[in-house]
């Protein structure tokens, strides 16, 4: 799923948490957050479907990611290279990356079917490196692909609050 339509309309108004398909999707998003904080990037990359895009745009309201400059625009190949870069030990920023703790919450559901759930959520990430805490807030859009063989992430867009201002170079992933 590379089509990440992310309009504000909520297809599913509360209460939706009772829907077991939504529960599965949220569970996967939380699992992903835990893997990222643990810097378990090889396992993390396995969560993604082959056609998933992982994007950190600069313009907060664009959906034309291919035609604009992003901080990250990763298809499977770039995602794998990114993980290799972080784990191989030759990137000084990754070796000395900040520790992170993130919470993902304030879920809304933009669509639900038996095969796919689209979720929007808020992420608050606190990082710590060399005596300095930093906070990064972001809106997340996830496409979760449901399947009996294991649910996967079919796409993720991370819209940082400060995406069009200065974002500090860091060795970790969002």
């Amino acid at each position, binding site marked *: 799923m590379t089509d990440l339509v992310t309009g504000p309309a909520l297809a599913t108004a509360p209460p939706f948490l009772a829907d077991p398909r939504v529960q599965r999707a949220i569970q996967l998003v939380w699992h992903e957050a835990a893997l990222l904080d643990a810097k378990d990037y090889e396992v993390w990359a396995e969560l993604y479907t082959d056609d998933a895009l992982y994007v950190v745009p600069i313009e907060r309201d664009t959906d034309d990611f291919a035609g604009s400059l992003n901080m990250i625009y990763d298809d499977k190949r770039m995602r794998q290279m990114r993980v290799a870069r972080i784990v191989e030990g030759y990137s000084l*920023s990754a070796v000395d990356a900040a520790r992170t703790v993130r919470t993902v919450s304030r879920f809304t559901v933009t669509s639900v079917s038996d095969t796919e759930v689209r979720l929007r959520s808020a992420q608050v990430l606190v990082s710590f490196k060399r005596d300095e805490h930093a906070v990064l807030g972001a809106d997340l859009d996830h496409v979760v692909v449901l399947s009996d063989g294991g649910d996967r992430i079919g796409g993720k867009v991370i819209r940082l609050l400060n995406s069009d201002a*200065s974002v500090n170079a860091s060795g970790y992933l969002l």
Partner: protein
Amino acid sequence: MTPTPPAPALVEPDRVHGSLYTDPEIFEQELTKIFESTWVWVAHDSELPKPGTFKSTYVGRQPVIVTRDRKGTVRTLLNRCRHRGASLCEKPRGEANGFTCPYHAWSYGLDGRLRGIPYPDGYEGVMEKSDLSLRALRTESYGGMIFASYDPDIEPLVDFLGDVAPWIDLFTKQGGGYPIKVLGRHQFTFRGNWKIQLENTTDGYHFPIVHRSWMASVDAETADMMSFMTDPECTTHSLGNGHSVMQMVPEHSDLDADDGTEPLQARFDGLVAELGQAGLDDAAVRRLVRAMHGTGFNLNLFPNVSLSNSFFRVLRPIAVDRTLVEHIAIGPDGPPEIVGPVNRERLRIHEHFQGPFGFGTPDDSEGWERVQRGAQAEPAMPIMVNRGMAREKAAGEGWPTSHVTDETGMRAAYAKWKEMMGDD
């Protein structure tokens, strides 16, 4: 702590004093004697495509608005209302007929002239509107690069650029026959002094060490193109006035010089086909594709901008130990069926290395922060910029020239720094 000697004495030909990175007083002097005295890059022409377009930015630490007025003249105006000082414009870019202060609604034209004051009777006999235009900086441009200066009597921009001008001409050839335009920008700060970044632009020496993980992630052809470390043809020239150029891929310095023998990189096969379908002949396709990684040189302009590969790198000093850096991606400006696919490809190349999540920038940034942290250990100890001094020769147009891994560019910048910091 031994007292720090006067600033100019802190720079010697082969070394500089560590306090150049750490002393807040030196930093304050730099703002006045350098950033408020010389030509500082503010914008590219394409950021102000038509009358009424503007960009807000900084010269040194002072906020400015760069505007294109009704007649097409580019102005750099202090972003400060003449009434009680409110900032007039908080938008990074846009289009406007003028600027109205949000506080008491004094309104100004795109040329900075005070046009209107609400309830003006209170000002009768007190002041003349014509005395209260926005403060304008002297503004000149060359090759689409717009610079501003607080000094109304400064030498003309072309004199300041000197031998840099022909390199700007070469750099713009990466438009492949089209003008170049800004495609987008990355912005990040690092906890370090601005000069650490200034030095880095012509520091070929750090490349294979710091960017080992980027090298591992690119295709063999790209890695091969960057094999400048041991190639004696790859040189750095000092161009005068603190400017320098580092040529990593000399065979791409003049993109019009193409004998047709260099194979195009396989990664662009899809693009080549697409451009062919859009009606371009082979020569035009080669022109655009060979320019994909830019011109293969980094042109470092003292004090705040460099033209690097396929982007502009702009620095802004924020504090003695904090600097903002912009990586401004550029590409050809032309018909969408041609520049669309070309620029999508260029954006991906840019993202791969640059920006806060690129495969290169975070490692540079970590290196620069390490310099700042380390320099606090006995600041009187020197920072060495002596690499290649013994093999420096006058080459080309008389430019001091050395190998691409040598510190010729840094020595040039510090010599200029010394000169400017000595002026009282």
